[in-house]
Each structure stands twice: as C-alpha cells, then as structure tokens.
C-alpha cells in the first residue's frame, strides 16, 4: 500500500477494474464448480440423473421446491 497523502476523500477516487487476465481462470474454474453445486441442489435426480436412486432428490426436496426449481 502506498503512503496516504493528505486527506483521502474516498468519494472522488475511481475504482480500477480487476484485469480480465487475472479474473478469467478463477471465473472459469469456480464458475463451473458453482454450477455443479446448483445442479445438485436444483435438478439432480429430477429431470436428469448422474447418480442412481432418489436420495439426493428426496434430501433436498423441500429446498428445491421453495427455491423455485421444478422438482417432480
């Protein structure tokens, strides 16, 4: 962090955007990971299934309904 000169008026300083190059790998990897989580809460063993059975569906049943996903 640089030295703080005079009175730092936070209202006037503009925010520098985070460079896309540093953001991209995080966005891709964690974006996909988060979508997988959403899939398991929202759709697994409903419309399609990766795991067999009904356990995931039954376990998150109430949250799936209440979050707005088509459940069954």
């Amino acid at each position, binding site marked *: 962090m640089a030295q703080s000169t005079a009175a730092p008026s936070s209202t006037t300083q503009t925010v520098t955007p*985070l460079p896309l190059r540093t953001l991209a790998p995080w966005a891709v990897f964690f974006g996909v990971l*988060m979508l997988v989580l959403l899939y398991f809460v929202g759709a697994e063993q409903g419309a399609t299934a990766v795991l067999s059975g009904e356990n995931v569906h039954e376990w998150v049943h109430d*949250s799936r309904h209440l979050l707005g996903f*088509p459940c069954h």
Partner: protein
Amino acid sequence: MNSVTVRTLLVRGMLAGLGAGVLAFVFAYLVGEGPVNAAIAFEEANSHEHGGEELVSRSLQSTAGLATGLLVFGVAIGGIAALAFCFALGRIGRFGARATAALTALAGFLLLYLVPILKYPPNPPAVGSPDTVGKRTILFVLMIALSVLLGIAAVLLGRKFAPVWGNWNASTAAGVAFVAVVAMAMAVLPSGDNAPKGFPATDLWEFRTASIGIQAVLWAAFGLTFGFLAERVLEPRPARSPASTVTA
C-alpha cells in the same frame, strides 16, 4: 489488484452466501414449511398411488434437508455473484465496492430468480406432473439463461448510451428495452403446468410468496454482507497515523 484479491473476494463471497443461506433457512423453516406441508397433505388425500415407504422422512426433509439445500445454494450463488462482482467493479459506472455488491446482488435476484419465475412460478408438491419435469426444467433453465443474457445486454446498452443521453435516460431506455424483450419472450414461450383440480389457491399463493421471500432474504443478506466484506478488502481504512506503525 492481483489474483490474490480475486481469491479473497471469492472466499468472502462464498462465506457471505453461506451466512445468507442460514438466514434463508430460518425464514424458509418458519414461513415456507407450512405451505409445503399443506400441499403434501393435499397430495396424500388425492393420490391413488404413492404410499410406499419414504426414503427421507418429512422431519429430516424439513430441517436438515432444507438446510443442506439452502446452504449449498447460498455458497454457490455467493461464489458466482462474487465473480460477477469482480468483473463489474469499476466497469458499470462510478460505484464503490458496497454499491457494486448491492447492485450485483439485486441483479442476481432479478435475473436469476424473479424474472424467470414470472413465467415459470415455483410449484409446491402435488403441482406439476412428474412426466413433464424434464420439459419444465429445460424451460426454466432456458428462461434463466434468457433473462441473464438480456440483462447483460441491457447493461451494455445503458453503458453505451450513457455518455450521449446521460445516465438517467440511458438507464431508463435500457430498462424499458429489457422489459419489452422479456415480455415478448414470455408471450412466445409455452406455459407451465396447471395445479390439479381443487388445489387451494391460497396455499399456492402462500407457497409462492414464501419462495419469493426466501430468495429475497438470501440475496439481500448476501449483498449487504458481501458489500461490507468486499469494501474491507478493496478500500482498507486509511491507517490512523500513530497506530499504523504496529502493522508492518
């Protein structure tokens, strides 16, 4: 501004989402379980099949199961929103960290939930045939994708015309364009399933308002917590000169 910042913001976004998920769970347990139970009672009174042994008991579904779903959902949307925040920061206008976080959360609530459910509303148990769940899931995901893409397009449009028309006029025009195109898409897309005959309209209404409440609690709690946490990463308080020597 390096990848350490992105990592910190991502972690804080997921933590804020986790906390928001806890709040949403409390709300869902208090407000949402009543209509769900009423719908299940209707289903059992009217079905001829069903009646096998249940894999997960109702008492688990309404507590641990509900909590699992909402906490995982909270972490997931927290992560996604944190990444969207990292992109939006400094790119959507002259907003600081907190305002950008609030706007990101508002956009998430509107684009990922409220706009899609206007066309395909949440349904309690007993509403919607299991035979059509595939079609309904595809249409719901399609509606979410459409709403997100049109939302991004509206922001780009607003940014493009802001220097010419001014912020207020450009934002209004972008908003109107968004509503118009979304309305056209909703008019064209097929409708969802009907509730079965005799299903109480009040229960349906209460279930749906509970669902909206849960998502509103989740996104509001996320936006406010994450804004607070992100601001402390991005705009560290100017060190008071005498005490600043301690940290080095």
